[in-house]
Structures are given as C-alpha cells and as structure tokens.
C-alpha cells in the first residue's frame, strides 16, 4: 500500500507534471503574458458567455425540401415529355398533397412515359427516392419516399453547413464554430463578434437568385406566378407576374462582386456565370430582346428591367436599390452559393465582450479566495496531511486546466462554478482518508498500519462516491445542452483528476515522509 518503487514514483510525477504544464499557456493568456511561439500552445477555449460573441441556432424546415423536390421533379417531367419523340402531351399538372400528379392526354403513351421518367426517379444513392403509381391508366402520380426525403434533407443540410461556413469566412471572423446538430439544425458560434446583426442578415439570406420573364398583360393565368417587390425598392405592395417556367436559376454563378454602374452611379452586383449558365442566359436574352425580365431574390423582386441587347458574355448585372453595404452583402451571399434550403434563426444569444471579461475576472477572484479558504481549513485541521492535500489540490487545478486545454474543451460560465465545486469536493477524498486515519489511531493502531488502513478503507467509499458522480456527469453531458454540457465536462474531468491527485499523489507524499522520518506518532 505504501510501497512506491522508483519507476512508479517517476511515472506518477511525469503524468502530473505533463498535465500541469499543459495549463501554463492558458494561464499565461489570461494573465496577459506572451507565450513563446516556439512552444506548443494548447488553450482552454472560452465559451461565448466568457469571451463574448454570438450563438445562433439555425433550422431548416423539412417542408421546404419536400416542396423543392416536387418542383424540380415537375420541371424535369415537363422537359422529358416535351423532348420525347414524338412529344408526349400532358395536362392537369399539380403538386398538391405532397405528390406530383399529371394526366396523359393519350393513354397509349403510358409505357413510353414510364420508361422516360423511371431513370429520373433514381437518385445518386441506392435509396429508392420516388414511388410511381398509375391511376385509371392515364394519371401518373409521383410521390417522394420518406427515405428519399430524408436523404435529400441530409444532403441539403450538409451543403447548407458548407455555405454557412463560406459566408462566415467571408466576414473574416476568427475561430467560428459551425456544426450540424440533429437532422435539420446548424449551430453557429462566433466569439467576440461585435455586430451579430450583420451575421444574421447574411445567414438569413437564402440567396436563391432567379431570372424570370415577366408575363405579358392579359396572358392566361395558367403557368404564371406572382412575386412582391423587395422592401426598399419604393414599390412596396406592388407585384410582378412572371412566367413560372423557362427562367434561369442563379446556381451556376462563378463569381459575384459589388460594384457601381458607371452610367447612373447606382450600386449594383456584377455576376459571372459558368459556361453552361452563360449559354442559357445568352439564349434567354437573345430570344426575348425588348421584353422585361424580373430579377428575383428569395421570392422578392429586386428589379424588372427590359432586356436591351442579348447578354452573351456570361456576365450580368443585378440592379436594385442597393446601398454599398447591402450590395456587398448580396455579393458575398451569391459568391458563397445559395443555401439549398432556407434557414431560420430559432435561438440566438449574444454576450457583450465587456461582460465576458468581467465574468472571468470575478470568477478567478472567487476561485482564488475559495481555494485559499479551503487550503487554510485543510491545513488547520489535518496539519502535515492537510499540506499534502493542498499540494495535491494545486496539481489538481493545474491538471484539470491542462486536460481541458489538451482536449480543446470549452470553459463556460457554469464551468467556472464546476471548477469551484471541484475544488471544494476534491479535498473530500483526503478528508475521508484523514478522518479514517484518525479513527484507526484512536483505536490504537501503529502509525504505518493506521495510514495503510486509512487509505484502504476509505478508498471503497471514494470509489463509489466518485463513480456515481461520473455517472451523473455523463447523463448531464449526453442529455444536456449548452451550459449544462460545459458544466458536465469540468465535473467529469475534475473527478478524474481529483481522484488521481487526492488518492494517489497524497499517498506517495505520505509514504515518502513515513519512510524518511519514521515517526512514532502523527499529529492528525
């Protein structure tokens, strides 16, 4: 029990010192000292509540993905039927009730139609994405399967996360955290951000750009749709009716830059298409010279200029009533790509940087006073054994910080409370042991036997007590969110380090002293 061979001593010291040294860069950082760049520099991340910054939880509506899939399928079915030779005529197309349905004008076309549609139903994966049913031999119904929808949502969220990352990178903020959470959510955390509104404005833009031909007055209502003007265009409450199909989506952009139109000094956004998009745009503008087309962003009309000349160079200009800032914002959004699905902010938290710095200062002060009080109490009660416990406590705090830095864990405000509780409870193991040694001495055991029995008998309770704490810490971590998680991490790591320092390290100290001093009595 009290036998510590050299190799054991060395390895215990190695572990203790290594973990403790890992804490030094973080401590230097808090103290405002420069840590030499040539040395490894693990840091404890500070949570937003300490560092200040913004936390956003973005959510996509799966309904939007469903709707989009139906619309895309409708376009491709129309195109397939139109391009078929001979052409297959269809009518009564609808996308209601979560399915696409249409009538064949000639029932004899059913097998050809099926043959054309079936390849389009197969996605990239092995998942079956659509169910095709034929009613009365003439009506075709296409229903997306749940598995297909889920796959689509998953893909959409993956690329949405990528788009969000690109947009935030464009803002030049440092160390953002962008994570997918659950099925339809993305967490964005940007420490130290001064202007959360700009971030929100940027992320709130789906940036779905569309160019659609404006419908001629008096055209039949079938195949038309209506969009409102974007606010700020001076045309609030007015609408533009456009042809639903045959336009161009802005997916094929390669670049977007804010600029100024030299002719009228207005802010514009210059966009460049890739080869395919450029060709489509050239075709559209060539065929419709003299007609107006609407530039639609996220379902709102920015402007509806008339096509003066064919635009064949692959680049175009988006006009609207932009300020330099809003033009730049749109350029960033377009450059980073459109979000495959609109995202809404369902949770937002911002913490001012002043408050964070203040919290750290107060937290550290409280920790220092608390530690001092605990140390004084331990030394006054257990003398030499209290000093050993104190040294172990100091290593415990350092190791806890060091391991958090190593693991890249985040220290939050509740985490500081967790730290203090760890300090208070860490000495419990030593209290248990020392009280037990007192008891054994009172029963008349000799010094070494009393110390040995003390460690042995107390360790059972220490083990049970700490293991249950780890269990509740793990439950906290797995079911909790945000601040609860931050608290749980400190608690779990703190329990591990405190058992190590409180039981193993102190035993090594005590054993070393007993061997050297060989006391006949101990003051405990």
């Amino acid at each position, binding site marked *: 029990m009290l036998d510590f061979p050299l190799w054991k001593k060395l390895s215990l010291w190695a572990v203790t010192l290594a973990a403790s040294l890992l804490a030094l860069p973080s401590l230097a950082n808090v103290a405002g000292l420069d840590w030499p760049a040539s040395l490894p520099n693990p840091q404890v991340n500070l949570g937003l509540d300490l560092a200040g910054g913004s936390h956003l*939880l973005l959510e996509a509506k799966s309904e939007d993905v469903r709707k989009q899939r139906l619309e895309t399928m409708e376009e491709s079915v129309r195109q397939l039927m139109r391009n078929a030779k001979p052409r297959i005529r269809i009518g009564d197309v609808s996308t209601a009730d979560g399915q696409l349905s249409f009538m064949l004008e000639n029932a004899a076309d059913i097998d050809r139609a099926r043959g054309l549609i079936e390849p389009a139903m197969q996605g990239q994966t092995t998942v079956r994405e659509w169910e095709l049913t034929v009613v009365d031999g003439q009506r075709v119904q296409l229903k997306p399967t749940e598995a297909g929808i889920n796959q689509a949502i998953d893909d959409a969220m993956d690329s949405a996360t990528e788009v969000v990352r690109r947009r935030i990178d464009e803002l030049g903020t440092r160390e953002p955290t962008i994570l997918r959470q659950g099925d339809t959510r993305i967490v964005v955390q940007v420490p130290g951000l001064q202007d959360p509104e700009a971030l929100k404005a940027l992320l709130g833009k789906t940036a779905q750009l569309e160019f659609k031909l404006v419908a001629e007055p008096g055209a039949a209502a079938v195949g038309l749709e209506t969009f409102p003007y974007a606010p700020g265009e001076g045309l609030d409450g007015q609408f533009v009716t456009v042809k639903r199909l045959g336009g161009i989506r802005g997916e094929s952009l390669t670049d977007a830059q804010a600029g100024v139109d030299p002719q009228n000094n207005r802010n514009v956004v210059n966009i460049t298409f890739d080869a395919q998009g450029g060709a489509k745009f050239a075709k559209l503008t060539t065929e419709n010279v003299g007609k107006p087309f609407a530039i639609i962003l996220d379902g709102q009309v920015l402007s509806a200029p008339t096509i003066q000349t064919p635009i064949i160079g692959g680049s175009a200009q988006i006009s609207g009533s932009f300020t330099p800032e809003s033009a730049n914002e749109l350029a960033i959004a377009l450059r980073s790509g459109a979000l495959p699905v609109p995202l809404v902010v369902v949770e937002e938290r911002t913490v001012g940087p002043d408050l964070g710095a203040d919290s750290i200062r107060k937290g550290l002060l409280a920790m220092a006073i608390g530690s001092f009080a605990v140390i004084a109490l331990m030394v006054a009660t257990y003398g030499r054994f209290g000093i050993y416990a104190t040294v172990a406590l100091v290593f415990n705090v350092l190791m806890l910080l060091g391991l958090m830095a190593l693991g890249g864990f985040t220290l939050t405000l509740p985490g500081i409370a967790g730290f203090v509780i760890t300090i208070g409870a860490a000495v419990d193991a030593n209290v248990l042991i020392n009280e037990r040694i007192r008891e054994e001495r009172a029963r008349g055991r000799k010094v070494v036997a009393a110390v040995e029995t003390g460690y042995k008998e107390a360790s059972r309770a220490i083990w049970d*007590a700490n293991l249950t704490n780890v269990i509740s810490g793990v439950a906290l971590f797995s079911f909790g969110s945000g601040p609860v998680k931050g608290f749980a991490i400190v*608690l779990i790591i703190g329990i591990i380090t405190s058992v190590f320092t409180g039981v193993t390290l102190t035993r090594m100290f005590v054993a070393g002293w007993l061997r050297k001093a060989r006391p006949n009595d101990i003051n405990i």
Partner: protein
Amino acid sequence: MKLLKLVPDNTNIKFLKLRVPFFVLSLVLIFGSWAAVAVNGLNFGVDFAGGQEVRMTFTQTETAPIPSLREQVAGLGFGEPVVQEFGAKNQVSIRVALPDGTEDNPEAAKAIGEKVIASVKGTYPDARVDGNDTVSGKVAGEFRDQAILALLAAMAAVSLYIWVRFEWQFGVGAMFALVHDVSVTVGLFALTQMEFSLQIVAAILAIIGYSLNDTIVVYDRIRENLKKYRKMEMGDLLDLSVNETLARTVMTSLTLFVALIPLLFFGPPSLFGMVAAITVGLFIGTYSSIYMAGPLLIWMGVTTNSFVQTESAVDRQEKIARGEI
C-alpha cells in the same frame, strides 16, 4: 501544533431517535414543494419559456430603475414583461414573451428585442447592452424536455448503480433522498420565483452528485458496520455509522461551503442563481443523507441479519460447488 477539531471524537448523537418527526418534516417539505410548483409555477427564463431576454447594465446609476422600466417596456405593447435584478443592483434582465403566433418567427422576435433596447436606451443613455437572447418556443420546449430527461436519467442511473453495488434497499433509499433534494430545491425556486434556467438544472445535477456523495459515504459505513456488529440494534448501528462519519460530513460540507461563498459574493453576477441553488442544495443534501437515507433502511426491513444471511447463503453455495457439502 494543536490541530482544529470541528467534531469532537466519539460523538454519540442519537440522530435516529428523531427519525419520525424529521421524516414527517421531509414529507411535508416534498409535498409542500410540489404544491408550490403547482400553485406558483416556476419563473422560467428564456431557455425554457422562449421569448426575448435583454440584459443591461446601468453604468451611471447604482440601482436600476426597475419599476419604471417595467412600466416603460409594458407600454411597448408586447404584454407584461418580466424585469428583474440580474446579479448586481445596477444590472437588469428584461424578458418579453413572444406574442402568440410569432414564437417561431425570428424576424418578429428580433424586432421586439430591438424595440426594447431602443426604448430603454432612449430613456437611459447610460444603459449598456450586455446580452440579448432569443429562443423560439419550439427550441425552449426541447430544452425543457432535455432538462427533465437529463435529471431523470441521472437519478435512475445512480440509483441503479447503488442497487448493484449495495442492496436494493440502499438504491431505493438513495433515490428517495434524491427526489427529496430535487423537489425541495425546485420548490424553493417556485416560492422565491427566482429565474429557473438551464444553469439551474446544472446546479440541481451538481446537488444530486454531492448529496449522493454524502449518502454513499454513510451507506458504505453502514455496510461495513453491518458485517462488524451482527448483534447490534439496527437503530444503534445507523446512529453509530452516522456518528463515525460525522467529522467527515461536516468537514467536506464546510470546505465546499467556503469555496462557494466567495463565488456567491464576488463571483460573476450571472452565476448567482446557480451558486445559490448549489449552496442551498448543500444543506438539503447533507440533511437528507442523515435523516432520510438512513431511517428508510430500517423501514424497508434492513436488519443486522439481512445481509449476513445472504452472505452465508453464498458461502454455502460455494461450499457445495467445491464439493465440501
């Protein structure tokens, strides 16, 4: 050097004598807490209720003008706001519920928060915005579910562990003590109407951990003494076990207490509620480990013979296995 002794050696306090009145007291506390929650409800923060919370510090005055703030924000027409001191006297949190139908509309929520900030800053130019939280109704509901799940999972898991490590009676006893601690703490929040947030849930879970620590140390000693003193009355044995561990109980509670007090008075204001909950829980947890966890063992029929018999039964089986019988 003369060392400090908080608890004299060989105490012999008859804790168990008062077990019935204290147990009744505990039951009253538990049911009283439930009643308080049912009648008063909890003052849910934005984490659990959803809505807008704006936190502000008044940099030029010592005391925030809470009543006039309440009136002013109510005048904006978003319903009755919750305006309360937040840590320091010059810091406030202003909470506005989102109107019906806009719980999941971030634009509406954002607009409300901005109007509140603009209005307050218009009247009090020295007000500094420290933070602004918006939580949609749906997310708040999920937080609530998750918090309840975390509490139940933690309580169930540790009770199960104790059952496996000790005996089922100990598991039930520990579970009961935990229900007591959680109920009374939550009840206290219902009574004082202090804000109940995710942080408070973390505090309650810390209490669970701490109270369990205490219970386990006492239980461990009971188990040890059950093997040692087979002829002793159960009540005396429980008293002996609690007395033997009393010095440790007092000392550990005290060290945790002295660590918490500076955090309460000098720590960040936003931690006040959480630390207050843990401090109160420290006393509740210590009390329940002594007055509930122990007596319950007697009432569940644990006697000095119960585990002796099971042990000898095990011995007997082993002897049969070895072919000695």
